[in-house]
């Protein structure tokens, strides 16, 4: 959820922030060099800390690390490629003959690194980019779809609060409707109430004139220093992505287990960190 803080990313237009985050996440997702992917992940967490949402973004690890572990295990068990066998498990249905290879383990680790980096950037996006700003931009393309998306996200905190209240009320019942039964009751009550909540919100939309809304007006205004810095950084991240894919030090653990050339990897990683963090250095005009 969007958290308001004093930071260059928060102070910038939502479209600039979104492009920057999308460029970072794309780089983290497509570049095969593990050192560069690691740098992309580190950049996300460092950026989050400088934007005042470090704790919230670190929370993304609670989801991304278990997911990564699962991905590594599946990769090792399923992928048959690689020559360096470190364990022979024999016949295991449904996988058949299972030989675990170091190459599959490393490749799984690389996928996990991608997942962690992309999720960290996605988390920065969610915490720092104002959804209303994005909606403004998107509404000119598809007003109703954009509004539906916003309303869906708006209902989330409302229903979360409802669930907390329901759960507290269940704890007050003398028959102690706790445990799994109590949780099911709460989920059912929230789901039932969601329809009422949605109807209330729909009535509000009606009386705010949504039904007769046309295409919203275009908003013009000077771009701030943070807009320009983030757009420039986004362009630079795209350039790094293109270079890394086309001519950069790639890495395929199944073809060669040893890491790619350290020099060019380090250089590219340093560039990623510098480009990602540079827009955060200018703290002028970011007050709440």
């Amino acid at each position, binding site marked *: 959820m*969007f958290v308001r803080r004093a930071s260059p990313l928060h102070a910038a237009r939502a479209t600039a922030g979104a492009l920057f985050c999308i460029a970072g996440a794309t780089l983290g997702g497509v570049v095969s060099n593990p050192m560069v992917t690691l740098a992309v992940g580190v950049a996300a967490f460092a950026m989050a800390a400088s934007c005042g949402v470090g704790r919230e973004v670190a929370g993304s690890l609670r989801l991304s690390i278990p997911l990564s572990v699962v991905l590594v295990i599946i990769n090792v068990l399923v992928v048959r490629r690689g020559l360096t066998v470190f364990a022979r498990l024999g016949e295991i249905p449904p996988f058949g003959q299972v030989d675990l290879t170091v190459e599959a383990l490393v490749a799984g680790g690389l996928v996990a690194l991608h997942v962690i980096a992309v999720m960290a950037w996605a988390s920065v996006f969610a915490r720092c980019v104002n959804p209303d700003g994005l909606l403004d931009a998107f509404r000119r393309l598809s007003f109703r779809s954009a509004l539906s998306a916003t309303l869906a996200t708006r209902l989330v905190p409302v229903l979360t609060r409802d669930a907390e209240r329901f759960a507290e009320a269940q704890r007050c019942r003398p028959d102690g409707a706790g445990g799994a039964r109590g949780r099911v009751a709460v989920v059912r009550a929230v789901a039932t109430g969601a329809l009422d909540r949605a109807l209330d919100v729909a009535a509000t939309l009606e009386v*705010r004139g949504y039904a007769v809304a046309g295409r919203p007006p275009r908003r013009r205004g000077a771009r701030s220093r943070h807009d320009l810095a983030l757009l420039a950084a986004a362009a630079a991240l795209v350039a790094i992505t293109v270079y890394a894919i086309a001519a950069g030090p790639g890495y395929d653990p199944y073809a060669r287990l040893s890491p790619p050339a350290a020099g060019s990897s380090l250089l590219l990683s340093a560039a990623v960190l510098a480009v990602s963090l540079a827009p955060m250095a200018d703290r002028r005009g970011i007050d709440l």
Partner: protein
Amino acid sequence: MSPVLSLQGVTYRYPGADGDALRDVSLDVAPGEFVVLAGLSASGKSTVLRAAAGLVPHFHGGTFAGRAVVAGMDTREHGPGDLAAVAGTLFQDPETQSVMATVRAELAFPLENRGWPAGAVARGVEEVALALGIEALLDRPTPELSGGELQRVALGAALAGRPRIVLLDEPTSQLDPVAGDELVWLLRRLNEEWGTAVVLAEHRLERCLAHADRVVVLDDGAIACDAAPSDALAWAAERAPALQTPAARLFARAGLRPPPASVRDARATLRGHGLIDDDAVAVPPAAPAAKRRRSRDAALAFEHAWHELRGGRAILRGVDLVVEPGERVALMGRNGAGKSTLLRHAAGLLAPTRGRVRARGRVGLLLQSPGDYLVHERVGDEAPAAALAAVGLAGVVDRHPRDLSGGQRQRLALAIVMGGSEAPACLCLDEPTRGMDRAVKGELADRLHALDAAVVVATHDPEFAVAVAERVVLLADGRVIADGPAREVLSGGWYFATETARVLGGLGGALTPEEGAELLRDKLVTGVAP
């Protein structure tokens, strides 16, 4: 001048309903008029407002007869979207009235829907924010706002396009009294400065009658009275006593006329009769000190209880409080004083970070929204039959809990917390009268009096506190600042005082209209101060 709202013979039935929600309602509201809609729950107040906003029948469906015209637009031809340009609407629940993530976007939304150019939208947002005093909130995310702030923002969204009429459906029912009073004052100011007509449905008439030009009373879907506030109160004295304000009841019982629409009017009349003397207005009495009570046999005892948030402030600061078996205590204090936290400690939902809380048996807790307790498809599945019978719901065991009225839902929630194999030694209630009409409040007070268990009620409503409790505990910043008999705590204050006490300036310690009327009658007869 043509009316800004005109209902002519409107009869309406919701889809699937057995009866009409509105019956032949005819009503004109002139430009710049401030009209209060009064009536008990389910009398048709909300439906009138929804008909004026075009939601009835366009949004709700159903059968509609008659004619509703808003600023020249007939609702049969124009839906809520068109009417939004001339009529702003505000509902009860602040949470479901914000549809955008920030306040600025929320205020801009109705203007953008109307196709205003960007510059005009920006200006409209600034102006309405300044008018409502919410400019500091403009860049705040809406989920972070308090109920009062959110309701102001929703009012801002309703007013942003400078509508000719604003329709408000119990907008203060979910707010604490201070936020509620502020909202009503704000409406009066907008009504006077912008000339916006206001139609306000409200249960707590004493909050808004002083500002009203007219009161329209609805009863079972039909208009029962349409008169100036004072005349409407006189009518209520004869025909609908549950709608009388405490000051009006005081006057009626003392045989004084006209019924006052505000404390100021009441005091002016009493002054005219020589019944009160402004020079002799009692200063608020010193807060009664808490008597030292033994906690060993108490139904509920807080012993130096603290609740400190990790990395935050202390909500309770060394509270010592003993509630004897069968005793009825009202907890009062402004929002954030620690009332709800205290009750959650009593029920074991929270544990004190220092000190301790002891109870002689089970502590039942009825939270603010009784609907939160209702998770089954059938009333009979929610609570034991004996508990349902005890609250008078034995006849509705096969109905769906969501189909019950507000008062019935609360009785059902009460049956749930009172049910179970072990009867509670103490029953705690957190703001049980929010959004209730006076008749339902009276029923609840009677029901609480009939209980054997000790009762602790957190409330902002001094009249309800007096009706329920013999002892009042005042909290401020997590500390007990007054603890004593209701008569001592609630008779001399300004905010923590009943309307009768405010009218009489603490005279004779009278708290209820009945007590006050007796004092006034004595004074009228003997001419001697009691």
